[in-house]
């Protein structure tokens, strides 16, 4: 068993533990902090999968920007600690059951999937340079230029929308 696999296993367990803590924690602050931890462990998994640029983005945008926004909102609002409800209403029972169903379907589907391309992927030499920022930049600025520009427009609209919605008097 290589170091890669062991690290992947460790990061996976930590990610799942963090995600469970997000859902089952009493205080929203604990949830937010364990979500930050989950994002960091996911970034570690991305590095193991040769997605270095995406891992850096994940830490900067998710663990940095988005989670600071979350923490700011948690500080702004006087929140009470509330554990997940122990006595579930029928709607929540249906929710839990459907999520278990989706999990079993997804696990079945992933076990069924087998890669026909796995034998003829690019060699180790090409994989050394796979996933660096240069490749992603070339792809974004040539093939995906229009979606990229649309995305900048979306971000502008989101800035304006957030200001308008959160303002006291519109």
């Amino acid at each position, binding site marked *: 068993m290589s170091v*890669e*696999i062991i690290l*992947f296993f460790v990061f*996976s367990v930590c*990610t*799942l533990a963090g995600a469970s803590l*997000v*859902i089952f924690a009493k205080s929203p602050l604990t*949830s*937010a902090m364990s*979500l930050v931890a*989950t994002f960091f462990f*996911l970034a570690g*998994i991305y590095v193991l*999968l040769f*997605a270095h*640029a*995406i891992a850096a*983005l*994940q830490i900067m*945008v*998710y663990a940095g920007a*988005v989670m600071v*926004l*979350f923490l700011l*909102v*948690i500080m*702004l*609002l006087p*929140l009470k600690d*509330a554990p*997940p*409800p122990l006595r579930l209403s029928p709607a*929540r029972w249906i929710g*839990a059951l*459907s*999520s278990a169903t*989706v*999990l079993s379907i997804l*696990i079945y589907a*992933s*076990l069924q*999937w087998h*890669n026909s*391309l796995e034998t003829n*992927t690019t060699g180790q030499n090409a*994989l050394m340079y*796979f*996933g660096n920022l240069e490749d*992603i930049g070339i*792809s974004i600025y040539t*093939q995906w230029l229009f*979606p990229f520009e649309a*995305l900048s427009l*979306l971000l502008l609209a*989101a800035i304006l929308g*957030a200001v308008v*919605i*959160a303002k*006291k008097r519109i």
Partner: protein
Amino acid sequence: MIPVTACLLLSAMLFCLGMLGFLLRKNALIVFMSVELMLNAANLAFIGFARVHGDITGHVSVFFVIAVAAAEAAVGLAIIIALYRNRKTLDVDEVRFMKH
């Protein structure tokens, strides 16, 4: 090399944990965090497939997903603040004034 099946299994579990939190919790903020978890599960699947196919397009998709998630977080948290200001609650069960 990490087997892509392991990636897919982890992604499936993460997605279903997010879905569980989305459906079970009452606090709107935690519901929102669960959505972020589900988005990250999708990202993980994208990156696993990008790795096994040696195709950079998966990474580009993840880039777009991260940007959309940032926009979504900004607007969603603004909505949560507006909700609290108007209704003094974050319980998603009590917010039903758009139902009728």
